[in-house]
C-alpha cells in the first residue's frame, strides 16, 4: 500500500453513511421530545420523576451490564449495583421515603458519569449509543404518572437486562424491551399500573379513569367530546399519551428524516380504523385514545423487532391494528396496544422468513414453502 499522494486503497464498503446508531437514536429522542416536554408540564414533578428515574436507571443498567460482560471494573460495578439497591431501601427504612428516589438517582448518575467521563488505565470509557435512553424514555411514556418510584426503577432493569442485553444486546432482542417491561409490571403490580392517572395543571390533582376505561364501561356516552382533549391534553392516561398531536408531529419528523418508513404506522392505524368500523365502535376515538399513536409510530417501528421487508411490515402493521382493536373491544382490559405489539414481535421472525425476497431469476421453490 504505497501511499501515492491522493490515492487511497481500502477494502469495501467505499461509501459510508454518516448515519449511525447514535444519530438515529438521537432523532428518535428528538421525535419523542415534544410529547415528553408537554407531559412534564402537565404532570409536573411526578411526571418528571418517573421519566428521570426510568431513563437514568436504563442507562445505569446498560453500563453495569457492559462492564460485567467485558470484565471491566467488576468490583466497582458490583459495588454500584448493590448500593443502588441498598441505599434507597435504607433511606426508606430510616423514614425518609421521599428521599429514596433522589438517593437512587444521585447514586446511579454518579456511576454513569464516572464510567463515561473518567478515563482509567487500560480501559475504554463507556460510550453511549442512546438506545438505552430511548428504551428508558419509552418505558416512562407507557407508565401512569403517579406510580411509586420503584416501578420505573424495576421496569428499567427488566427492559434493559431481560428485554435486551440477555439476548446479546442491541439488535438481537426479539421483543420490544420497553413493552416487555410494561407487560411484566402490569402482571406483577396490576394495582399500581392501572391507576394513578391525574393532572396537576389546574386546580385539583385528582385520580381519574382514562377515556378508554370510560368508553369500555359505557360511562362516557359522547365520545366525540374526547376528540380535542385526546389530541392536545389527554385528561387521563399514561405519561406518553398526553397528546396524540405532538406524537404525530414527532412521528412526521422521523418520517421526513427517514428514520422510520410509512408502512407500519399507516397500516397499523389504518387497520385499527377499519376494524373499529367493522366492530361498530368510534374509529376516531380509538385512533386518538390510549397508546395507539405512541405504539404505532414509536413502538411498532422498532427496527430490531419488526419485519425487514416492506411486505412484511404491512402484514405486521395490519395484524397489530387488528389485534389491538380485538383486545380493546372484546377483552376485559381497556387497552391492547402492548399485547398486540408484543404478540407481533413474536411473529416477526416467521414473517421475515416467509417474506424474504426472491433473488432475481431464481425459480420459486417447488414445495411451496416460500409464498
Amino acid at each position, binding site marked *: 500500500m504505497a501511499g501515492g499522494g491522493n490515492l487511497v486503497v481500502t477494502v469495501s464498503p467505499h461509501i459510508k453513511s454518516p448515519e449511525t446508531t447514535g444519530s438515529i437514536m438521537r432523532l428518535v429522542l428528538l421525535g419523542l421530545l415534544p410529547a415528553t416536554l408537554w407531559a412534564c408540564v402537565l404532570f409536573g414533578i411526578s411526571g418528571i420523576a418517573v421519566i428521570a428515574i426510568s431513563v437514568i436507571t436504563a442507562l445505569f443498567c446498560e453500563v453495569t451490564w457492559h462492564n460485567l460482560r467485558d470484565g471491566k471494573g467488576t468490583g466497582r460495578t458490583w459495588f454500584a449495583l448493590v448500593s443502588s439497591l441498598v441505599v434507597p431501601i435504607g433511606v426508606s427504612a430510616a423514614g425518609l421515603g421521599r428521599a429514596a428516589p433522589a438517593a437512587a438517582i444521585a447514586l446511579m448518575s454518579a456511576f454513569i458519569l464516572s464510567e463515561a467521563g473518567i478515563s482509567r488505565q487500560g480501559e475504554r470509557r463507556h460510550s453511549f449509543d442512546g438506545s438505552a435512553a430511548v428504551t428508558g424514555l419509552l418505558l416512562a411514556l407507557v407508565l401512569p404518572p403517579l406510580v411509586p418510584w420503584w416501578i420505573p426503577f424495576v421496569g428499567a432493569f427488566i427492559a434493559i437486562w431481560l428485554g435486551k442485553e440477555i439476548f446479546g444486546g442491541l439488535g438481537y432482542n426479539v421483543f420490544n424491551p420497553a413493552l416487555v417491561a410494561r407487560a411484566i409490571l402490569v402482571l406483577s403490580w396490576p394495582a399500581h399500573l392501572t391507576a394513578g392517572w391525574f393532572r396537576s395543571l389546574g386546580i385539583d390533582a385528582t385520580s381519574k379513569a382514562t377515556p378508554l376505561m370510560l368508553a369500555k364501561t359505557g360511562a362516557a356516552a359522547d365520545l366525540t367530546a374526547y376528540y380535542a382533549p385526546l389530541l392536545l391534553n389527554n385528561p387521563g392516561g399514561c405519561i406518553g399519551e398526553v397528546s396524540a398531536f405532538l406524537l404525530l408531529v414527532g412521528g412526521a419528523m422521523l418520517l421526513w428524516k427517514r428514520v422510520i418508513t410509512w408502512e407500519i404506522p399507516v397500516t397499523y392505524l389504518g387497520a385499527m380504523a377499519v376494524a373499529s368500523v367493522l366492530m361498530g365502535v368510534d374509529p376516531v376515538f380509538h385512533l386518538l385514545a390510549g397508546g395507539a399513536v405512541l405504539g404505532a409510530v414509536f413502538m411498532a417501528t422498532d427496527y430490531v423487532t419488526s419485519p425487514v421487508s416492506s411486505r412484511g411490515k404491512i402484514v405486521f402493521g395490519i395484524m397489530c391494528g387488528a389485534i389491538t382493536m380485538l383486545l380493546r373491544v372484546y377483552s376485559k382490559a381497556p387497552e391492547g396496544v402492548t399485547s398486540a405489539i408484543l404478540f407481533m414481535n413474536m411473529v416477526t421472525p*416467521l414473517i421475515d422468513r416467509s417474506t424474504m425476497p426472491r433473488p432475481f431469476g431464481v425459480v420459486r421453490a417447488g414445495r411451496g414453502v416460500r409464498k
Partner: protein
Amino acid sequence: MGEVQRYFLIFLGALLIYNILLIRFIALCSYFGISNSMDTSIGMSLAVIFVMMVSSTLSWGLWNYVLAPLGIGEFLYIPVFIFVIASFVQLEEMFIRKTAPTLYKAMGIYLPLITTNCAVLAAATEVAKPGFLKMSIAYNYTLPEAWVYTFGVALGYSAALILFAAIRERVDFAPVPGPLRGYPMAFVTSALMSLAFTGFAGLFGL
C-alpha cells in the same frame, strides 16, 4: 349461545387463550427438543395434529361408552388413556410405513416421540373430563366439540412450536452471554412468548 359461537369459543380458547405450550406449559420436552430447526418443527406439528385428533376421538369414545357407564373411569382413566394412545401410535406407525411411504417419510420419525407426548394425553383427558377451559359453556363435550377442541389444541401446539423455531433460528446466532447460551436462552425466550400470549387472557370472556 349459538352452536357456531360455541365451537368458535372452544377453538379459540384451545388455540390461543389456553395455549397448551405457552400458557399451560404441557409438552415442553418436545417443544424444546424439536424446535431446533423449522423442518423438524413442521413435521412434528403435522404428526401431532394427526395423532391428537385420532387419540382424542378414541378416548372420548372410551370414556363415554365404557369407563363412565361402568363407573371405573375416575381411577382408571389415566392408565387406560396412556395405554390406548401408546398402542395406537405404534399401530399407526406400522400402518403408515406400509401404506403411505411418503407420509411416513414426512412425519414417521416423529411418531415414536409422540407416544409419550403429554399434550396428546392432556387433550385426550380434557375431552373426556373437561376442566381446563373454564367457560360457561359445554361441561361435557359432544364428539364434534371434542374434535374442535382437539384441533384447536393441536394447532396451538403447532403455532407455538413453529413460532419458537423461527425465533430460535435468530437467537442461536446472537452473541448471548456464555452461561445463557442454548437451553437457558430457550427458556427465557419462551417465557417472554408466554407473556405475549398472556395478553389474550380474558378475550371474549374466556
